[in-house]
């Protein structure tokens, strides 16, 4: 027997829960009669008869991405099914259902008044429990093998934490969440270390890690000290995923290693490795070449947008180059655990115990 076809549009939706409440429901999750999640946002000024909502049906996969902060609320309205509707919250019946009317004729101009602007994330929900239960931290589990002593565990966690912090502060969204004081502290750490040689970045990473820890903490959930054993880290799904990407990118080899050698060699030849931040390059052309190399190095290592970190470095090319080189070295150290066969990443899972 043929599988029944899904109707092309929904006609009603059942209330699942209110996600954002501010003097009334502002963002609401429904389940449409086509069985899909449907998200509604309050639009326009309500009155006693009409409390308008603009509703979009969402693919399950996209809802999960939203729940884990991979995408923002705007994305749910602008990508995916494009099945969008108007509804009147005041029509919500005792059975928790309301009627949907198709919003096919919305113009691009009207849409801007109906769709959330970029930058509203699941963490901004105001209702607790259920709505935030989807915001679970991710459990990154690593199978370990071979001989490990205490310093190996410490080094592994230290390098993972350094990369985790670097990736978090490399996103504009994270920077928006940090206070001015925290950003000042990170910039002080960058300035404070930048005139020293390559091995002196421990303090810098400690300080940025301390700052991002309040935002998206990284924790050791469990260490099973055996051969083979396990190390479980719990933290922001996005940042942990980024760290995995850094390690994978490093393993691809080729251009990233050539760039590192080129940049490191250039600073050495120019006697800039221990130079103060205000030490200039011989000419602007060379400075620009080095900057492009540093930006490219970051991108090759999985940093989607290298600009926020460049901005944190006050757009000082020498400082940014040194920071980028230190980032490469930390990726190299973490990759070494993998290439030596002592660590293997397992499939990530959600940690609901946090």
């Amino acid at each position, binding site marked *: 027997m043929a599988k029944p076809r899904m109707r092309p549009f929904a006609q009603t939706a059942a209330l699942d829960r209110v996600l954002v*409440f501010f003097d009334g429901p502002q963002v609401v999750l429904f389940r449409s009669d086509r069985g899909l999640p449907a998200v509604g946002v309050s639009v326009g000024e309500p009155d006693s008869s009409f409390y308008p909502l603009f509703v979009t049906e969402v693919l399950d996969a996209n809802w999960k991405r939203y729940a884990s902060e991979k995408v923002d609320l705007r994305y749910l309205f602008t990508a995916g099914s494009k099945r969008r509707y108007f509804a009147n919250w005041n029509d919500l019946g005792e059975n928790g259902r309301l009627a949907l009317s198709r919003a096919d004729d919305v113009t691009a101009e009207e849409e801007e008044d109906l769709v959330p602007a970029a930058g509203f994330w699941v963490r901004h*929900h105001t209702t607790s429990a259920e709505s935030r239960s989807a915001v679970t931290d991710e459990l990154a589990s690593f199978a370990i093998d071979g001989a490990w002593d205490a310093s190996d565990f410490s080094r592994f966690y230290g390098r993972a934490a350094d990369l985790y912090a670097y990736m978090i502060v490399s996103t504009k969204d994270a920077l928006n969440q940090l206070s001015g004081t925290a950003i000042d502290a990170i910039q002080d750490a960058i300035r404070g270390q930048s005139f020293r040689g390559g091995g002196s970045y421990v303090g810098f990473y400690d300080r940025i890690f301390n700052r991002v820890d309040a935002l998206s903490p990284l924790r050791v959930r469990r260490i099973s000290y055996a051969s083979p054993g396990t190390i479980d880290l719990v933290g922001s799904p996005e940042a942990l995923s980024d760290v995995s990407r850094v390690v994978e990118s490093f393993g691809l080899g080729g251009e990233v290693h050539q760039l590192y050698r080129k940049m490191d060699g250039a600073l050495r030849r120019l006697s800039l490795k221990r130079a103060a931040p205000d030490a200039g390059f011989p000419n602007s052309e060379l400075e620009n070449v080095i900057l492009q190399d540093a930006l490219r190095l970051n991108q090759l290592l999985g940093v989607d947008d290298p600009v926020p970190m460049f901005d944190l470095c006050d757009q000082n090319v020498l400082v940014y180059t040194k920071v980028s080189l230190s980032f490469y070295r930390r990726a190299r150290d973490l990759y070494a655990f993998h290439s030596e066969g002592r660590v293997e990443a397992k499939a990530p899972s959600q940690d609901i115990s946090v």
Partner: protein
Amino acid sequence: MRGDSVQQDFLEDLPDGCPPEDATPPEAASVIRLAKDPHPDPAHFASHAARGLPLRGPMTCSYASCSLFFHDAGFDQLNAMRRLPRFKNFKYAYILKVDANSGLGLAGAGKHLDLWMFKSFNPVSAIESVEVMHG
């Protein structure tokens, strides 16, 4: 624990069973009310219910509360709210002090506070500053 505060009258007429049992006197804190108007007025603190709008679905008591954010939520939360269609023109943050004499409160996620204000509390007088939000 509500303590003596249950004896106080509330500023608005509340639905039966409100505030909810788990609402408590807030500890002294700086909170923020989002607003469209740079000149605060008691009407800017009126709840959904006080404006005569119907109550639908769950959260009946919240409809009759004043929605606030704790100041330490920072402007990340406030700016995020302004990305919602209804709040694009809410450019002002009234920053005020609340404490156990202000009403009964219930803190939610996102540093949100439902406050059922006492009749003796004047939110406009409690305002310490009005800030214009950017971004």
